């Protein structure tokens, strides 16, 4: 089977400081990969490089495109990369304000990606928006309200709907439950797990919260100081950590 | 009975005649001469030259007279005239180190070579209306001193010699010309400075003030403010050497700003720069602060979202001729557009009312 995404030696420096160094892995269709580590470990830098938001100093990110098979994402012309970013890929930000248009209605937020790829039937766009609001448990009568009027958890669910409406195959998530209350987190995780299974999504989830990866991720990558220190199946890494740092992380001695 | 509007031409001519009458005011009062405006309203003349981008005190005075003292209107007259002038060539960069200073102060050193020269400043006047001026008496004679024989060294050059301030390496690239090319972003520093020096004084002042109050703060000290005359020289290809074509008065402000550095890179102060035609120190200081704020990217600072850090925002809105034109144009007829919105609003109201009626039934 062809991996959906391959990272090969991805390296990013900020001046003298290493963001992430020589990271390589394969992600297969339908697989969810968790990247854990404390803040400053390079996990967010790596995610930005993979999603094309940052240009790495070295390395390749190869994605199995629908039309042309595996392509080096960093070498794609900008229009194609941006098209990928709003069709086949999704990016869920930690802060929903970074991923939503706060000035337009929930319906327009969900519909934007559809319109960006050519949907021109108002009624159908609205139908899909209603459908997606339902799937993320937002009442359809909130469709014309702006996200400002929503709670933090609702905003995050709206962001997820907005991202998944075009049926992407790969979702990048940056601390998707960060900043939410514990009870709200649980509901969101439940929802995410359901959607991932139901749509057969592949995902890369960056988090410092081991509960998130235990629920969502098939595999785990542990990062420290810009480098990957341990990888493996989630249960294996969490139940039998090999690297000293992972052991600290799992035993929660380390404040993360 | 409605009659289509005719006679626009007659109305315009009559309005212009009336304007000329109002400009003159009461004919019993002696008419202002251009020389009077040039000599006695010199700071207004300086502002018109600076923002009109044309160094000609007589034309600036004429523009002020024609504009009834409305300085933005006067600047507009100068700009419109300037754009018709042929571009014969470019001067050499002026050497402000060789300036014959009327005023030169530093806020960073108590004393220094060349000394602090207060010059003709309002700084320590008490702002009490001077009723003696209403009596049109001659002022007291000011004391005089022999002109300085040697050029006055620049304050920032002392810091530069010790590596204490960020070095500004000379650059021989021809800067882009704001009046000959469209302004496109990102704009380099030469272009930003060009734009700032002719930007509206009030706008630049407001932007600079906002940085002092925390919107893009950059901890400025006035390293040096100098006002005086410099020579303008031009390379004449037929002659093969530079000749002096005249002398202009400039105000230059160099600020010493918050330092950068790290454990490995020695700390250094940073610079802001202002240079404006004539005695225009409020503008020059403001310009230096805004220049510094706009340099956040090259100096590795954070974009705090402050208006003065946003080059597109500052450069696109600082020109008072553009601003006043677009602002005032909304008084021109817009009845076609208004009509189209009127129809739309009526239609939407009808739809909403019939919706309410249906809901009620």
């Amino acid at each position, binding site marked *: 089977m062809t991996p959906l995404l391959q990272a090969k030696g991805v390296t990013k420096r900020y001046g003298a400081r290493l963001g992430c160094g020589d990271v390589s892995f394969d992600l297969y269709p339908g697989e969810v990969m968790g990247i854990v580590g404390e803040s400053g470990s390079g996990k967010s830098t790596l995610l930005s490089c993979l999603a094309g938001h940052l240009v790495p100093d070295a390395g390749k990110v190869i994605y199995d495109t629908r039309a042309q098979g595996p392509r080096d994402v960093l070498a794609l012309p900008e*229009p194609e990369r*941006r098209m990928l970013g*709003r069709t086949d890929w999704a990016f869920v930000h930690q802060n929903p304000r970074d991923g939503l*248009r706060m000035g*337009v*209605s929930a*319906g*327009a937020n969900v519909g*934007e990606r559809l*319109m*960006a790829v050519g949907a*021109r*039937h*108002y009624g159908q*766009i609205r139908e899909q928006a209603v459908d997606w609001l339902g799937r993320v448990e937002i009442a359809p009568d909130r469709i*014309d309200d702006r996200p400002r009027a929503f709670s933090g958890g609702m905003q995050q669910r709206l962001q997820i709907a907005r991202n998944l409406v075009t049926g992407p195959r790969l979702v990048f998530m940056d601390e998707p439950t960060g900043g939410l209350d514990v009870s709200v987190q649980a509901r969101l995780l439940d929802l995410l797990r359901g959607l991932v299974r139901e749509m057969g999504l592949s995902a890369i989830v960056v988090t410092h919260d081991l509960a998130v990866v235990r629920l969502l991720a098939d595999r785990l990558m542990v990062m420290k100081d810009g480098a990957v220190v341990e990888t493996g199946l989630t249960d294996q890494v969490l139940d039998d950590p090999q690297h000293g740092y992972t052991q600290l992380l799992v035993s929660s001695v380390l404040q993360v | *009975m*409605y009659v*289509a*509007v005719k*006679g*626009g*031409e007659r*109305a*315009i001519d009559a309005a212009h005649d009336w304007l000329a009458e109002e400009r003159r005011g009461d004919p019993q009062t002696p008419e202002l001469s251009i020389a009077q405006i040039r000599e006695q309203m010199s700071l207004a003349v300086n502002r018109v030259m600076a923002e009109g981008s044309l160094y000609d005190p007589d034309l600036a005075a004429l523009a002020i007279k024609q504009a009834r003292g409305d300085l933005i209107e006067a600047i*507009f007259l100068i700009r*419109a005239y*300037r*754009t*018709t002038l*042929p571009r014969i060539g470019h001067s050499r960069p002026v050497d402000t180190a060789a300036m014959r200073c009327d005023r030169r102060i530093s806020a960073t050193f108590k004393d220094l070579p060349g000394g602090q020269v207060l010059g003709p400043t309002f700084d320590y006047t008490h702002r009490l209306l001077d009723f003696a001026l209403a009596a049109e008496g001659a002022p007291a004679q000011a004391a005089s001193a022999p002109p300085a024989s040697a050029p006055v060294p620049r304050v920032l050059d002392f810091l530069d010699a010790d590596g204490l301030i960020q070095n500004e390496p000379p650059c021989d690239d021809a800067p882009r010309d704001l*009046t*000959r090319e*469209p302004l*496109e972003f990102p704009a380099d520093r030469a272009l930003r400075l060009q734009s700032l020096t002719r930007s509206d004084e009030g706008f630049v002042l407001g932007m600079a003030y906002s940085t002092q109050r925390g919107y893009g703060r950059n901890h400025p000290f006035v390293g040096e403010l100098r006002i005086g005359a410099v020579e303008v020289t031009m390379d004449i290809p037929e002659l093969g050497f530079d000749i002096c074509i005249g002398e202009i008065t400039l105000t230059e402000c160099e600020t010493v700003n918050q330092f950068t550095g790290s454990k490995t890179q020695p700390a250094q102060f940073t610079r802001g720069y202002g240079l404006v035609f004539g005695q225009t120190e409020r503008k020059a200081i403001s310009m230096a602060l805004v220049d510094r704020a706009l340099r956040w990217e090259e100096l590795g600072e954070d974009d705090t979202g402050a208006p003065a850090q946003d080059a*597109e925002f500052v450069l*696109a809105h600082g020109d008072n*001729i*553009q601003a006043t*034109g*677009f*602002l*005032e*144009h*909304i008084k*021109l*007829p*817009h*009845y*076609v*557009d208004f*009509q*189209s*919105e*009127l*129809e*739309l609003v009526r*239609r*939407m109201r009808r*739809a909403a009312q019939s919706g309410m009626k249906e809901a009620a039934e």
Partner: protein
Amino acid sequence: MTAHDPNYNFAYLDEQTKRMIRRALLKALAIPGYQVPFASREMPMPYGWGTGGVQVTAACLTPEDTLKVIDQGADDTTNAVSIRKFFERTAGVAVTGHTAEASLIQTRHRIPETPLTEGQILVYQVPIPEPLRFLEPRETETRRMHALEEYGLMYVKLYEDIAHNGEISTAYAYPVRVEGRYVMDPSPIPRFDNPKLESAAIQLFGAGREQRIYALPPYCRVTSLDFEDHPFDPSKADHDCDLCGCGTSYLDEVIVDDAGGRMFVCSDTDFCAGRQAEGHQGRLSRKETA
């Protein structure tokens, strides 16, 4: 035609500047709907009064041209008079009020009712050339959006209109797509005029303050943005002209008495006068009119 004021170059601008503008115009015609940056000059009239249109007109005028200038559809509005006088003085060209007689028409906010023909040039005065400006204020970002054809945001705006108002609530400066590529602001013409953007004439758009020129070559395909189930509707006041009886022209609404009484008249004064001369009458025509 009279001689032009010898103190100024023909049509005011110097020849170098005209060449610069013509280069921008040619580029604009070659890439319909694309905004070409140009080094707009400071004109002896304020920004906002049509400096972009005036520069384009100056660059296109020849001594043989016949010029018509309209503002809000009328030849007699003060700014139209002022611009026409400017070119009479600086270019000495013939002027006319008749659309059919003009070789070059400068306009603000309207397209003449009389269909334009091949060989005519229509010059628009444009205040804000960027159709995405009020969705995204940053020039660097809007230029990228055009380059990558990212127009989803434009449709978000139209979607919001319908969601909140029941219809697309843009009444003028209604955005269009040119030849399936660039989204363009047709200047603040009422949306009633949008269908006339597909024309036999050359259409040139000048934005002086914003330093942009763009163009529509003859017979260029111009579609107004809409949704399949909310198609574009070039609406107008539901009245006939009270002077010439025309039921298909764009109308001005005039308040005629203290009680708020209204009448509707053609905004295109030349068109209306022409119809009246042909004997057409409206509700308020004087019956004895010859």
